[in-house]
């Protein structure tokens, strides 16, 4: 892992299109600003990890289709 020491308003560049700037340093956290090309999605990692885990759980097994179909039949 590359490690940098940055002060307020200093930034790092990733490639030539992604800039991450330190906006504020507080006691409880660091506020960062990210400038990235449109095609690069930027997320808080913990949210992204939750969505990935939810997606993996949601990947349907064939019996899931059957369960939904049976449920629809009951409701018909």
């Amino acid at each position: 892992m590359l490690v940098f020491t940055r002060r307020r308003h200093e930034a790092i560049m990733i490639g030539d299109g992604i800039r991450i700037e330190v906006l504020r340093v507080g006691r409880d956290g660091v506020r960062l600003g990210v400038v990235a090309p449109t095609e690069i999605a930027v997320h808080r990692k913990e949210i992204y990890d939750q969505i990935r885990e939810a997606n993996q759980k949601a990947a349907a097994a064939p019996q899931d289709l059957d369960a939904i179909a049976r449920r629809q039949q009951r409701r018909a």
Partner: protein
Amino acid sequence: MTRVGIPVASEMVAPIEAPAALAPETIRFPHGLPGFERCRGFVLMASEGLGPVQCLKAVDGPSASFLVIDPRRVLPEYRCELSEMDRARLGVQDQDTLLWLSLVSIELDGTITVNLRAPIVINPGAMVGQQVIPYHCVYPIRFVVSETV
């Protein structure tokens, strides 16, 4: 874009095949989905037997299929604002033209939940989609549905 023709009821346990001939119906997901980054193309399939639930099946990359539903079918007042970046990635200015789908999970105990936090949004005009994670979104990842589906 919706293809009808999944075998219903008891036949439904057979895996759903998406023949290569249906390629024009493929929706491009340039980034895949989180956890399924190599799945770049999906087809959306409907069946009377599934009611409002549809099946989103990957046609390239690892085998993957998902049950999906319009989030407004489970929560009529559902509304998420897309960021300017998300709209640009989908190639739209007006988000009302988009198709919204939420992933449905059937948990081990049979509980059915819907991911309202990170909807899949598709631009039917461009046949391009992505799973968005809106910055300001009050809805849960695991919204339990009872008899609303």
